[in-house]
């Protein structure tokens, strides 16, 4: 008999896979909501193909008594809703995996795994309820049953989700669920596995994904103008903001292309809005001219850049961390910018809010770099702290002789907007005089370029230090950035090697002044990056001279798993 969790205090990793449009999302939703209410900790992550129907997608849900926040390869329970399970799932089945599926639907697909396969005639049952569409709810029922959830939360979930569709729908879903619960009992009775993860109720937990965290951070930062052209995996933030537009007074416009998106942002910022654009690499590439405009106009804009694999269309619904250099150098000419790469949902909220603050304060572009893995992954955590302080407005009233680009020691000129105060407000894409009028003078050019670049010093002073996790007196140091934080953290936990620590960069530009010192203290440094050329390591060398020779890189389109980082580091550090 296989026991889950495999280790004392561990989690159970459930993977549900099926065709697009087949309801995996429903299973995920139901499970997460219900398990969370029951007091479990949950983590979830999706991988899906670039299609609307068919194919095969999967969701991993880890359920635990302790917080879980990272992707694992390990599959404890695999629930294939239909055939055509893809290699990336099959490869992850080990001798401890239990597969629960409908033999009728799956045919011989799991032929080699008879010992681990438990037949659950989901399809037949679904047909009895009213059609194939109920298969996913039945599957959810099975899982709910296995985790032994109480009926209260399930009922309220159904009410919330399907209530509007009428009693019949609610009833049928309820029936499908009940059948699943019953099947769960029968499956357990077979005695092939047991499931003994215990809930650990805590006060007020929320469960959000990276998209929500970025969106909420934007709202907290005072964002009131969102322009975007839909692009995976960045459009979630667009929908999120659209749905909050009325409640929070946000102008949300899906524009005709990415160039419009960034140019709206710059125009809006000029007029006093706090704009956000959300896009992915290809869209960002198109925006770089506009980013340069924001820089020369000193208009505060925030860009959410959710990375996916390139070049070009690449893998539209997959993940990668290969646009750091694009974010850093995109746009012609030279100008300061800020780039955050949150590693946790909390950081995503805080740093998106901070991006609005810094953009406004330094009148320079700020970029929040996430990726598909990050925006589509969720876990439970305490509610973000909104605090009581309103986002600071750095705007001044324009006096009669207002000069938009007045010289100042730190390069920051008081910013006014048209209509606020008596004065006139100008902005110009050319090199300009203090009022903002184009004026060709070589000394002026130098002065203005210096003024803009000088802001880099003020920005540098506000840089966040990378987060050191592990012993202070490390000998080996793993560096990483963005979405791999929790993955590396868990891998290091598992490795449990003395003298091994990690350094996570949630701000990748500018690099904090301690970077060289922190790296210098290590005997060995390994860079873990989700790209093929170790972009952060190269940047670190450029800035500190320190060459990071050991690299663990991944650019398969899927995020690193805890196991891949663990084993990769084990090899590199042995």
């Amino acid at each position, binding site marked *: 008999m296989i026991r889950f969790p495999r280790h004392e205090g561990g989690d159970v990793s459930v993977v549900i896979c099926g065709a697009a449009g087949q309801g995996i999302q429903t299973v995920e939703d139901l499970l997460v909501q219900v398990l969370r209410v029951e007091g479990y900790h949950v983590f979830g992550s999706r991988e899906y193909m670039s299609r609307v129907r068919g194919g095969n997608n999967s969701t991993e849900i880890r359920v635990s008594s302790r917080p879980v926040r990272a992707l694992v390869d390990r599959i404890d329970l695999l629930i294939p809703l239909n055939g055509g399970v893809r290699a990336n799932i099959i490869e992850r089945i080990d001798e401890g995996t239990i597969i629960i599926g409908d033999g009728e639907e799956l045919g011989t697909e799991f032929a080699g795994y008879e010992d681990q396969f438990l037949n659950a005639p989901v399809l037949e049952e679904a047909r009895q309820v009213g059609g194939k569409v109920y298969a996913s709810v039945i599957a959810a029922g099975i899982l709910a049953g296995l985790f032994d959830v109480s009926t209260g939360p399930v009922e309220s979930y159904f009410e919330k989700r399907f209530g509007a569709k009428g009693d019949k729908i609610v009833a049928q879903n309820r029936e499908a669920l009940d059948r699943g619960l019953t099947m769960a009992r029968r499956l357990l009775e077979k005695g092939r596995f047991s499931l003994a993860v215990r809930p650990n109720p805590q006060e007020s937990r929320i469960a959000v994904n990276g998209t929500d965290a970025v969106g909420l951070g934007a709202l907290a930062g005072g964002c009131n103008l969102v322009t975007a052209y839909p692009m995976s995996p960045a459009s979630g933030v667009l929908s999120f903001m659209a749905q909050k537009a009325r*409640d929070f007074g946000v102008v949300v416009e899906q524009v005709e292309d990415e160039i419009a998106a960034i140019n709206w942002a710059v125009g809006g910022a000029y007029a006093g809005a706090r704009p956000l654009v959300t896009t992915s690499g290809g869209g960002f590439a198109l925006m770089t001219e506009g980013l340069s405009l924001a820089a020369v106009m000193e208009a505060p804009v925030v860009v959410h850049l959710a990375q996916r694999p390139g070049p070009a269309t690449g893998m539209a619904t997959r993940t990668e961390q290969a646009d750091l250099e694009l974010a850093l150098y995109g746009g012609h000419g030279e100008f300061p910018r800020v780039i955050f790469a949150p590693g946790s949902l909390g950081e995503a909220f805080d740093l998106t809010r901070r991006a609005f603050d810094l953009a406004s304060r330094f009148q320079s572009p700020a970029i929040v770099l996430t990726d598909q893995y990050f925006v589509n992954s969720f876990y439970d955590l305490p509610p973000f702290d909104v605090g009581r302080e309103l986002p600071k407005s750095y705007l001044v009233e324009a006096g009669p002789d207002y000069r938009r680009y007045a010289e100042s020691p730190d390069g920051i000129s008081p910013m006014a907007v048209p209509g606020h105060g008596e004065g006139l407000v100008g902005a110009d894409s050319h090199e300009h005089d203090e009022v903002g009028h184009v004026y060709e003078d070589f000394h002026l050019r130098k002065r203005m370029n210096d003024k803009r670049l000088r802001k880099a010093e003020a920005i540098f002073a506000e840089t966040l230090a990378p987060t050191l996790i592990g012993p202070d007196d490390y000998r080996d140091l793993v560096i990483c950035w963005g979405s791999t934080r929790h993955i590396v953290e868990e891998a290091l936990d598992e490795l449990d090697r003395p003298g091994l620590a990690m350094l996570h960069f949630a701000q990748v530009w500018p690099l904090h002044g301690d970077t060289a010192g922190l790296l210098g203290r290590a005997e060995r440094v390994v860079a873990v990056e989700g790209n093929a050329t170790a972009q952060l390591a190269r940047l670190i060398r450029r800035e500190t001279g320190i060459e990071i020779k050991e690299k663990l890189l991944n650019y398969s389109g899927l995020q690193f798993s805890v196991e891949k980082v663990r084993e990769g580091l084990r090899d590199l550090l042995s």
Partner: protein
Amino acid sequence: MANRFDLENIDIAWCPGCGDFPILESLKKALTELDLMPRDVVFVSGIGQAAKLPHYIKGHFFNGLHGRALSNATAIKAANPSLKVIAIGGDGDMYGEGGNHFLHTIRRNPDIANFVHNNMVYGLTKGQASPTSQVGFKTPVQVDGVFSTPVNPVALALAQGAAFVGRAFAGDIEQTKEIMKKAIAFKGYALVDILQPCVSFNKVNTYAWFKERIYYLDESHDRSDRMKALERALEPDRFALGVLYSQERPSFESSLAPYRNDDRPLYARSPDLEKLDGLIRSL
């Protein structure tokens, strides 16, 4: 004659005799006659000779990138609907690099006036063909003459449901001013394509050439009849001037969430933190 929109001590970079001068003149007069003040107006432009105009008139100004003025302008209006927003550019700026924004701004119908100095050539970059250059027009790049059918901006706007479409001729300050006044006063997107001689690079479409081909629409023209307007717009070798079409419909800003029951511009607002806290706790 002094005008409240005059800007002092400026060095105008246009060529002597350029059609841009009378357009600037018409615009200042139109604004003054509409009793607007410089601080009521934001002049938005891209890059090109025409697009230099915001540096030659008193008001707020946003001189952005080549081709993008309509995007900037719409956002400015959306961020602060109390501002009068006027977007200015050349034919290359608006119909070439900016063609996509032109098309989609028409659809959106923000309350901005769009004045396009259509000189049928790229002035600032020294004489290449523009999207409105006539077939056969020779330049250092179009050595065998322009091959493509010119953009017909007025027809395009009409075909895409533009709410206000006008055409003017730079050489006639009085009439251009009148058309501009209507466009500025119009609540919604108002295009005025202004035929503008470029004395340096367009030796074909001169003041005289235009004068021979223009005529003003008279009272009999029904401004609410889109098909009639299209007929005018598609006339070969003639340019009907005046307001070809004008019919108000709700403007883009009026559809925006923040202004449903609150007039304040965005800069004057802060997020409702309590509501946000509630939202977060509900997730």
